[in-house]
């Protein structure tokens, strides 16, 4: 019967337990940051599209009937989902922050407002709407949100960049921690390394021992971190998704779709791979100064 081979590096000690925790925590944070980055991206896309699609048309010196006519014609435009004239109550509600809760004075000249929801990805409907106003001899302005949306997209782009930087920083920290731990393990196992060398082991054989050790450790720790990130995300998705309003729209859209699962699965693999490379490079560099 063939004998089972004991690993040449002794099984883990307290140092490796601490390293396991650190790598697991870093993977948890990296996975969460990656999910948040993706959520931010999705939120930015959805929110930007919504803002860009909202168009307000201000009509002056016209009656409500002509305005309704304009709304009907605008609704018929190719890229427009809906166009409607705001009721007096809705306009009063909009002006309430400026005029107070007492309502508008009867004699106050208030423009008629038409809100349009359009698909800006098909094309900018502003010119077509202006054409409708001209046809009906309405003095009015079309106020799109493209510029505002651009600013929002810019701000969210910065947020995405920050989130990606955090992922990169966490990954770099994990690699540095593993490189440091490998070096420490190498020093702690110097007696074994010397015996292996004097028994004729090549550097890459010794590096392979450390590579495998840290590959498995980082893979397991990364899996733990990913599972923790999955649980936190699931908690947010299933308990926080009920909230709506502006706050909910501004927050990153955490979900658990296919690509989120891919992120969670790739995180431990990346950690393992980074650990493997870090261990190999560290050991080979350190062994140059030994026997």
């Amino acid at each position: 019967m063939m004998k089972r081979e004991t690993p040449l590096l002794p099984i883990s000690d307290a140092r490796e337990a601490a390293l396991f925790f650190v790598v697991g925590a870093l993977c948890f944070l990296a996975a969460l940051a990656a999910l948040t980055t993706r959520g931010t991206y999705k939120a930015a896309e959805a929110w930007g599209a919504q803002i860009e699609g909202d168009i307000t048309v201000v009509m002056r010196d016209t009656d409500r009937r002509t305005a309704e006519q304009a709304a009907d014609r605008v609704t018929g435009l190719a890229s427009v989902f809906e166009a409607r004239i705001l009721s007096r109550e809705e306009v009063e509600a909009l002006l309430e922050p400026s005029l107070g809760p007492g309502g508008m004075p009867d004699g106050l000249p208030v423009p008629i407002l038409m809100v349009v929801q359009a698909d800006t990805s098909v094309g900018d409907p502003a010119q077509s709407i202006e054409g409708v106003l001209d046809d009906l001899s309405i003095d009015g302005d079309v106020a799109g949100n493209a510029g505002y949306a651009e600013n929002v997209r810019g701000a969210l782009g910065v947020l995405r960049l920050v989130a990606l930087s955090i992922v990169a920083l966490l990954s770099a920290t994990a690699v540095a921690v593993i490189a440091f731990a490998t070096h420490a393990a190498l020093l702690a196992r110097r007696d074994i390394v010397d015996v292996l060398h004097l028994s004729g082991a090549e550097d890459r054989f010794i590096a392979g021992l450390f590579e495998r050790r840290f590959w498995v450790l980082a893979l397991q720790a990364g899996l733990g971190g990913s599972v923790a990130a999955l649980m936190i995300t699931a908690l947010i998705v299933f308990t926080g998704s009920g909230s709506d309003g502006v706050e909910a729209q501004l927050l990153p859209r955490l979900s658990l779709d296919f690509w989120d699962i891919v992120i969670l699965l790739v995180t431990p693999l990346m950690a393992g791979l980074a650990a493997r490379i870090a261990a190999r490079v560290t050991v080979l560099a350190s062994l140059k100064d030994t026997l």
Partner: protein
Amino acid sequence: MSRIRPDLSDEPAVRLDGVSLTYERTGEVLSEIDLILKQGSFTFLTGPSGAGKSSLLKLMYLAHGPTRGGIRLFGRQTYDLKRKQLAALRRRIGVVFQEFRLLNHLTAFENVALPLRVSGMKADSYQNEVIDLLRWVGLGERVDTPTPALSGGEQQRVAIARALINKPDLLIADEPTGNVDPEMGQKILRLFAELNKRVGTTILIATHDLDLIREFDAPVLRLSNGLLVRDVEFGGEA
């Protein structure tokens, strides 16, 4: 397994030319050593404690390089070897360390098999060979015993078996009888002599036990204060 085997069969197994070794802390421990060990020779190295025996052996088994001078093993200059070549050369050398240097988390079997394992051999290809060697050194019943559970003498024999498992061209032993009783010491040296005679392995044994040396017709080198003196009191030439 790649091996460095020069065609120069007349080259000595070991050749030291003007070798000196200085440690930062203790100063010069070896001074201008010239030494030739012919292939197939059997030689003793003696000297008082601190004379530099272990340091001289370390240079020969390539644990470190000399401060000055040149070392040639099997006709190959060693100072310019690449690390891969160094590993290949080490596989031709078996070393019995004074302090055994066994891996405590491994069994007797696994310690003996270490040189084969690091050279990439699979366990099923060397299993019988390792067990036979352990039987030969009297440890047939201790094959699967963890190293810490072995006595000093048993550990010594495991270390000897490990040094021999690769069928080395050069065997260097640093006080191989230091932790065994005189009877076992005799047995170990006879084992080395038999290996030298049968296989032609070049053997260098460092020991301070002159009583053991007397029984062998072999040249004796003596180290004193870092200087090498040929001592022909007991045997022939190296």
